[in-house]
């Protein structure tokens, strides 16, 4: 439900994975197949000669070092910044407002309802239930619109469809209070807390 860029993740993982795979396989072949070693010597020596030539032509006037090192450093900095930007995209998408709209009245102004209203109301209603080992509610932005994610941890043996129907009723009651239908995702998870606590015997 969060805004993790899934297509980007797949593409970048594909690129990085293929590169690592190629390097690893090359090293494996170098260690095992002599013919590959002969080819590698010729090819890599060629590439390195070309690079050395480039370095020689790009020296600072009157000094030993080439400014290509600074270019390489700049490229590396760009890659690092891009990677940090990619990291910061993971799991983003939390929203603060549930409703933000103009009402029909002739008074100027905007109605804003924070996500905390729904989160706290639902969490309070869910925390009273004995058939749940835990519950959390969070507001996310889905395609620019707010949505709620309700994550509940049923105890062992609780029938999920009955639980879903009851949570649905809670959500419908919340719709009435807020005056707007918000997309809601109910996610029933199993975790260590539900696995190792006693089974629900009443229902």
């Amino acid at each position, binding site marked *: 439900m969060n805004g*993790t860029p899934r297509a980007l*993740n797949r593409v970048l*993982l594909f690129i990085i*994975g293929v590169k690592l795979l190629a390097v690893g396989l090359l090293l494996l072949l*170098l260690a095992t197949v002599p013919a590959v070693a002969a080819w590698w010597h010729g090819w890599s020596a060629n590439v390195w000669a070309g690079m050395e030539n480039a370095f020689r032509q790009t020296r600072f006037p009157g000094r030993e*070092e080439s400014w290509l090192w600074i270019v390489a450093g700049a490229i590396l900095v760009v890659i*690092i910044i891009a990677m940090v930007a990619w990291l910061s995209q993971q799991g983003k998408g939390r929203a603060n407002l549930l409703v933000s709209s103009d009402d029909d009245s002739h008074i100027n102004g905007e109605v804003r309802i924070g996500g905390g209203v729904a989160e706290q109301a639902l969490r309070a209603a869910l925390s009273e239930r004995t058939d749940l080992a835990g519950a959390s509610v969070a507001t996310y932005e889905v*395609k620019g619109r707010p949505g709620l994610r309700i994550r509940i941890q049923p105890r062992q043996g609780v029938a*999920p469809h009955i639980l879903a129907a009851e949570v649905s009723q809670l959500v419908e009651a919340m719709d009435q209070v807020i005056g707007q239908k918000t*997309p809601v995702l109910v996610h029933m998870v199993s975790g260590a807390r539900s696995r190792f606590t006693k089974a629900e015997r009443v229902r």
Partner: protein
Amino acid sequence: MAGEDPEMSRILSRATHSSRAGAAVIAAVLVILFCVYALLEAGVRAIGQPPWLIDPTTAAERIIALPEGITPLLLGASGAVIAMVGLFFFLHAVLPGRRARHLLRDPRTAVVVDDEVLASALARRARTAANVTQEQVMVVVSRQMVVVNVRPTSGSRVSEEAVLAAVQAELDEMSPVPMPSVRVNLASSGVIGA
């Protein structure tokens, strides 16, 4: 079902498929570490200072000479490790990344249930139908299949049909999407003293 709405179906498909955030974080951190080290060596070289670990020119010459200068075993092993890490990322990118979850029909909300939650509910039903204790029933739920393993108490008969009917009825009530089929395995040996 709430899934008919395009917005809801998008939410549901995102809930039942992995976002690959974990693999992405590992890959990004690896690339950052590598780049920081290369940056350090390049920077040291650019201002004409002695290298920290290895001079880039020396490193390149060693790489060109590769099968020499290192034992084949170490070279092969490091190659295998790097290839494994690459394969890990590659498979994460290519495989569909489906999570072990089912959808439930609900008119108002989008409901996603972990397979373990389904399994524990079905196990409870199977346990009451077979009249055995909790430890004697094990239910495994996969995408298309529910396998119920029952170890009956020694000396008392368990009806396979009754267990199957009970589990099937519970599953029909839940109606998860996709609907799995049910198989019941009765263990041939019983449990003593349960």
